[in-house]
């Protein structure tokens, strides 16, 4: 049943996401950089630094390696935005995950299209990472379906009991793959905002100027979307607790980033599948059996 009020609400949420997510995502990134600096006993940049960076990049003249690259990056951004709109307007969770995967594929294509050895390796690793986190994302969706009997975000978000109670292990598994999605140590294989590693900046090596800015903005959209997933786990506690929980999850990710060395991709894939298999599957089986 879908009346006009509902539709309006959905449009509002979707539009709100489009407008506010980059703001929130950028602020979050600024907060991330300050907290990281403080953990390293440094003062760190201003909160608005990520915005300065992006505006600066937009001012630069990009040396585009080829036209396809820009095209793929724009597709990546559009698909990430689309994914977010789908999610925040209360759409289908499976579809969201699917759209996110498509976005990821565009990013990989963008990196492949440059023919630089670093970005090729970065792209290969990005693919491996997708292989690593995809199963867990699906398990999250399935788990939520088992609990709420719906794949629709608007149903999940209004579900009466906190989902985290039913899916604690799935939540831990999700936090685990968040380190991959946020591109944080120990799993920041394909790209790293710290830029100190064997493949220079990996997947973003050949992007420069405005193209790199698009990459950053897409990343902000993506981060807010991912925190939206965290929100779902705590939705029933009310918006305040849920938002705070999402932020706490983000802080935990920053802490982990600073407490671990980067690990190799072999280990990443193995570890994330093990986590998905043990935590995720066991949790789901328990739910299914109790039903």
């Amino acid at each position, binding site marked *: 049943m879908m009346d006009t009020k509902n539709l309006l609400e959905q449009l509002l949420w979707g539009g709100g996401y489009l407008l506010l997510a980059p703001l929130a995502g950028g602020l979050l990134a600024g907060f991330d950089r300050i*907290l990281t*600096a*403080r*953990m*390293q*006993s*440094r*003062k*760190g940049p201003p909160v608005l630094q990520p915005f300065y960076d992006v505006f600066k990049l937009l001012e630069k003249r990009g040396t585009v390696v080829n036209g396809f690259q820009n095209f793929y990056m724009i597709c990546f951004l559009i698909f990430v935005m689309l994914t977010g709109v789908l999610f925040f307007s209360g759409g289908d969770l499976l579809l969201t995950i699917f759209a996110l995967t498509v976005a990821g594929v565009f990013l990989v294509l963008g990196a492949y299209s440059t023919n630089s050895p670093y970005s090729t390796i970065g792209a290969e690793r990005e693919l491996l990472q997708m292989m690593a986190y995809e199963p867990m994302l699906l398990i999250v969706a399935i788990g939520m379906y088992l609990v709420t009997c719906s794949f629709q975000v608007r149903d999940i978000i209004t579900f009466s009991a906190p989902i985290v109670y039913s899916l604690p292990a799935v939540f831990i598994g999700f936090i685990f793959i968040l380190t991959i999605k946020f591109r944080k140590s120990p799993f920041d294989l394909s790209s790293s905002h710290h830029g100190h590693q064997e493949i220079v900046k990996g997947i973003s090596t050949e992007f420069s100027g405005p193209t790199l800015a698009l990459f950053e903005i897409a990343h902000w959209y993506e981060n807010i979307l991912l925190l939206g997933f965290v929100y779902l786990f705590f939705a029933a506690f009310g918006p305040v607790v849920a938002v705070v929980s999402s932020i706490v999850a983000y802080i935990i990710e920053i*802490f982990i980033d*600073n*407490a671990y060395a980067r690990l190799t991709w072999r280990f990443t894939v193995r570890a994330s599948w093990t986590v998905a298999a043990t935590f995720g599957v066991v949790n789901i089986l328990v739910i299914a059996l109790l039903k």
Partner: protein
Amino acid sequence: MAHLTISKIITRSAVSKYATRLYPFVKREPYKNTRGHIANEINLCIFCSLCQKKCPTHAITVKKPDKIWEIDRMKCIQCGACVDACPKKCLSMDQQYSAPSPVKSIESFHQEASTL
């Protein structure tokens, strides 16, 4: 094998004051020994050119007839050889480092005739 061995340090750092020295807003007193730049008490100079000869980077030019002592800050490596060589002890090592600059220029010290 242990996990999160660094957690104590990073948590403590996150909640306590950073180690950053807020240069250029806060400047630290230089140490007494710090080798910054060469200063010349030009009125004592006898233009003997010993410093010019000893300087390993040819940063110093002494123009005896004009009573001019020149130093190229962009060549000086603060080794102090000139200070050690100077017979009149008019050269000294100041603690302040020389400032960056968009152009290379030579700093001249001119001895006033009247002071002799």
